[in-house]
Every structure is written in structure tokens, then in C-alpha cells.
């Protein structure tokens, strides 16, 4: 990866929402391929060395496991692309929305009403965070504080109980399969396509990318920068809402620790996928790829009998490695 990207040294970085400027067709092509390479490498190594990796159930488990992180990461990637790094309140808002969704079903509302209320709640949560950050509050510190207050409120209101659904109308979505593929994975892939099209084909999507690339220029040419920041946070919250609905469908309950570690997984997926943290390079699919790489790694390590700590350690190391590689490349490119 290092050698490929170094070819681009000396060329200016073009921000157009597509591949940043690496000289020649080769460089650009290699850079597009680079994030996928680890997947292939890990897959081949795992298939060769780990018994049971290529079995059907295990592969389905991998895709399903990356779907949850991936969907949340696709939403959160909007925040990254608009230039605000990431929300540290992702798992807290997902827990909140899971409780909202389950509670609505518990009190006998229809599925449509429950989903509608969950989405409205998501928009609200996203809008509040987006508003705070769009005013210039530090995105990390503000979402850290918001997440803490939100989580505390939810635990308090729910009395820290687990709500279990007797009848689960979304079980088919969260746990079912269509043609042998888990529905969660289908949602994940569909979302990836929609998100990519949104960023590259729609006006709002392109404005989002430009805002991340150069907020001052965006403001000067009349793009509603603050509004776009709010929209990005709302999109992230919608991703969390979807995750909440899917997981509730899968496990038929909401509990305060159901999404432990989700924020970290999402951040790691975004970093490992290599979405430029400076924003403005809207390659949304990288978030999905990042989620896949991480889940595959975790899965391999799990099959190899490594414990949670080692897996987390490796996630962090991988994220740092990708981040530093990208930073050094960019520095040279200038």
C-alpha cells in the first residue's frame, strides 16, 4: 500500500468526492483497490489456516456481525465526511432508540407507529447533537457529554431493566434470511449503495462532501454549512435507529448494555476503512469495508482462540496504522 500511494507524491490532492489525486490511472486504481486488499488477504489466510472459517454458518455469522457495525458506521460516516470526525454518543443513542422502539411495541402500538416514533426520536437526537456541533462546539467533547447525559437518562427512566418482547413483529428482519442471506446483511448492502449514490449524485450529498473538504469555501459559495452539519448528525442517528430496530428484531429485547462497544467498533471501522478523517473525501463504502475487515479479523482471532483483549488491541493498532499511513502519504503528496 505504501509503495503504491507514494507514486502520487507531488500531485495536488484533488477533492471531488471521488478518488483523491494520485498520478495516473494506475495510482488511482491501486488506491481504490487498496482497502479491499486486506479483506482478500485475511480471507485467504483464514481459509488456509483456520478450520471452520469457510463453513457456511461461519461466513453468514461474519457478514451478519459486520452488518450491525457497518450500518451504524455508514450513518456515522456522514459526520466524518462533513468534517466533524465522529460522534462519541453512537452506542448511547442506539440504546435509547432500542428502548423507544421496544417500549412502543410493548404498549401495543402498531409496528408502523413504533418505527415512526423511533425515527422521529432519532431525528431529534441527531438534530440536538448536530445543532450543538454546528455552533462550533467541540464535536468530540460535546457528543461525549451528550452521550453520557442521554445514557444516564435512559438507565434512570428504564430503571435499568431489560424489556423483553413477547411478540416480535420484526424478528424476520433482524434474524431472518432471504435466499439464505441474512436480512441484516441485505439491509447493510442496500444502505451502502443508497449512501454512495446519495453522496455522489445528489445535491445535498455533494454539498456534504464539499463542506468537509473546505468549510470556508463552502460557506462563501452559499452552502448552508450549519444545516449540513445537522443533517450529517441526523443521518448518523438514523443509522443508529436502524441498528436498534434490527438488533431488537434479532434478540427481542432492549437492555442498557446491548450495544456495549458499538461506538468503538464504528470509529475503528471508519478509521480502518480509511475514510479521510479530515472529511471531504466521501467514499462511504470504505466504512462498510472497514466493518468487514474488522469483523473478519475478530472472527479469525475468535476461531484461533484469542480473547477479547487481544482483538481490541489489534483493532486499535490497525486503526492507528491506517491513520498514520494515510497521514504520512498525504504529507508527502503535498
Amino acid at each position: 500500500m505504501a509503495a503504491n500511494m507514494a507514486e502520487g507524491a507531488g500531485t495536488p490532492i484533488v477533492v471531488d468526492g471521488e478518488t483523491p489525486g494520485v498520478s495516473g490511472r494506475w495510482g488511482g486504481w491501486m488506491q481504490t483497490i487498496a482497502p479491499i486488499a486486506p479483506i482478500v488477504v485475511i480471507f485467504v489466510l483464514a481459509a488456509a489456516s483456520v478450520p471452520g472459517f469457510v463453513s457456511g454458518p461461519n461466513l453468514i455469522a461474519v457478514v451478519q456481525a459486520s452488518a450491525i457495525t457497518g450500518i451504524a458506521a455508514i450513518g456515522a460516516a456522514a459526520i466524518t465526511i462533513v468534517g466533524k470526525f465522529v460522534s462519541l454518543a453512537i452506542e448511547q443513542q442506539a440504546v435509547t432508540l432500542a428502548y423507544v422502539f421496544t417500549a412502543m411495541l410493548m404498549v401495543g402500538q402498531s409496528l408502523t407507529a413504533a418505527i415512526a416514533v423511533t425515527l422521529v426520536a432519532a431525528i431529534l437526537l441527531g438534530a440536538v447533537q448536530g445543532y450543538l456541533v454546528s455552533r462550533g462546539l467541540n464535536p468530540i467533547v460535546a457528543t461525549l457529554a451528550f452521550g453520557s447525559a442521554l445514557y444516564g437518562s435512559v438507565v434512570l427512566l428504564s430503571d435499568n431493566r431489560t424489556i423483553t418482547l413477547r411478540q416480535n413483529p420484526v424478528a424476520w428482519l433482524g434474524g431472518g434470511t432471504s435466499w439464505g442471506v441474512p436480512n441484516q446483511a441485505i439491509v447493510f448492502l442496500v444502505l451502502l449503495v443508497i449512501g454512495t449514490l446519495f453522496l455522489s449524485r445528489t445535491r445535498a450529498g455533494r454539498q456534504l462532501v464539499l463542506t468537509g473538504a473546505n468549510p470556508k469555501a463552502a460557506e462563501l459559495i452559499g452552502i448552508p454549512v450549519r444545516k449540513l452539519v445537522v443533517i450529517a448528525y441526523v443521518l448518523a442517528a438514523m443509522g443508529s435507529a436502524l441498528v436498534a430496530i434490527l438488533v431488537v428484531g434479532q434478540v427481542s429485547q432492549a437492555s442498557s448494555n446491548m450495544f456495549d462497544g458499538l461506538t468503538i467498533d464504528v470509529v475503528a471501522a471508519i478509521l480502518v476503512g480509511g475514510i479521510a478523517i479530515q472529511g471531504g473525501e466521501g467514499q462511504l463504502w470504505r466504512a462498510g469495508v472497514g466493518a468487514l475487515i474488522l469483523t473478519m479479523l475478530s472472527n479469525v482471532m475468535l476461531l484461533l482462540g484469542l480473547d477479547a483483549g487481544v482483538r481490541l488491541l489489534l483493532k486499535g493498532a490497525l486503526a492507528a496504522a491506517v491513520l498514520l499511513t494515510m497521514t504520512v502519504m498525504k504529507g508527502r503528496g503535498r
Partner: protein
Amino acid sequence: MSVLARIDRGLWLRIILSIVLLVAGSILIDGFATTATLASITENVGLIGLVAAGLMLTMVVGQLDIAVASVAAVSGIIALLAGQNSLLLGIVAALAAAGVYGGVIGWIIARTGVSSLVLTVCMLIGLRGLALVLVPQAPAILSDDLFWVSDGLVARIGLAMRGTRLGLSMYAVGGNVERARGSGVNTTRVYVAAFAGSALLAGTAGILASLRSGSASGTGMDSLLLDGVTAAVVGGVSLEGGRGNIINVLLGALIVRIIAAAVALEGVQSSVESIATGGVLLAMLLVDYALARRSGLPFANSWRVLAGPVRI
């Protein structure tokens, strides 16, 4: 520019606020004015003050170290592991590890220009994993006088920030990196010192906390980050860089702990506490914003590192 940090009366404001809160708590809340509550407040102020002082170092130079809680956890665990035969050895080993780690991080940030937020988030993830890997078994007991060591450490850093060339360089770098570099400040050294200091202080907090409880876990100290940031912000450290001093940070920690202890007595311990801390932090950010806007300062531009796009 952070207006709260600029108000010279800030120190008195915080002292008065602490006293008012203490008095109000004692009058209004049953069980507040007991030795147990006060002892817990004092002890927690010590821990959070250490973390907040470390965060202050990185905030003053215009960066932010998100990994403090993980550093604290790992340091605590190293101290317990290496300190099974000799407590002193464990503490020295843990502090050495934290110091070297912080120095390396600072050096990387200075050399590559990578965003400290993003890099330290990676470290947060990785170190939390490391903490889970290392989880210790053997309990250890803390002798009480070690808490005085921590107070001495914080006081020394406070003096060094104002009285040494390096300390003053930190403020200069936080105020304006280019100007500081132009006037001959070695910015690499400043960043290394800030991050090594932050890791050392967080590590000290982690060691004290884990020696006190005789155990440490990978995620048990997560709340230190939120508490530390809140204490620092309430203590008037500006996220923009270049402002903040140690006495105000300690008062900030005191105020945060008094509020947390007061609410905790009223309801479910952890959830109410996190509402209170998160709420206080948000409120402070908003007050800062409102004050800055009223005085006509271009607020959004002033949050140098953090308001704009987070640059790699």
C-alpha cells in the same frame, strides 16, 4: 477565545461556587455533611484532578488526549502486576511505561501533524484491549501517604507551567503554533512534554485508583475521561489552547465532584451521576459559547483544533 478562562475573577468565582455548593448540599441534602461523603469527594477530587491536570497540559498546547482513561487503566494494571514483590518497582515501571508511551505519542503528533483526537482515539481502543489482556489477579494495598505524593505532583506541575521555559512555551504553542515556532520554540519538545505529562498524570491516577481498590480492569476507569474533561472545562481550560491553570482545574474537579456526590445521594448512583456530569459539561460549553458570542468574538474560528474539520 474562551471568555471563561479570561475572566480574572474566575478563581474567586470558583472558590465561592465551591463553598456555596458545599453549604447548600449540607443544608438541603440528608447525609451530605458526613465524613464519608466528604472523604469520598476529597479522594475523587485527587484522582480526577490528576487526570484533569494531564488533560490541561494537552489542551493548553491546543490538542486533546482522549486516551487518558485507558492509559490510567493500563498503568494501574502494570503497577499491580510489576508490584507483586515490591510496590515501588511496580509504580516506577508503570510510570515509566506511561511516560514513554506519552512521549512517543507527542513525538508522532509533532512530526506527522496527525490530529491528536483521532490518534488518541485509536490509542483508547488499543490500550483498552491491552488492559483486558493484562488484567491482574493479585490485590495490592495502598498506604495512605501515597495520595500526598499525587498532590505534590500536581502542585509541582502547576509551578512548572508558570515558572519554566518549557511551561511557558506550552502556552505560546497553544496560543499560536506558527508564531511560537517563529520565535524559536521547539514545538516537538513541547508536544512531547505535554503528552508525556498527560500520560504520566493519568497513569498516576490509574495507579492510585487500582492500588486503592486492589484491582483494575480494562473498562473500570472509563468515566475518568468524562470527569477529567468536565473538570478541566469547568476549571476554565480553553479547548482552543493557550489558556488554563492548575488551581482553577483543581477547583473545577472539586465543583464537579460536589455536584456528582450531591446528585448521587438523591438517586441511583451511576446513572444520575452521568446525567449530572454530562449536563454540567454541556452547560459549560454552551455558556462559553454564549459569552463568546455576546462579546462579539468569532467563536467558531477560535476553536482552533476542534471546531473546524479535524485535520489528519
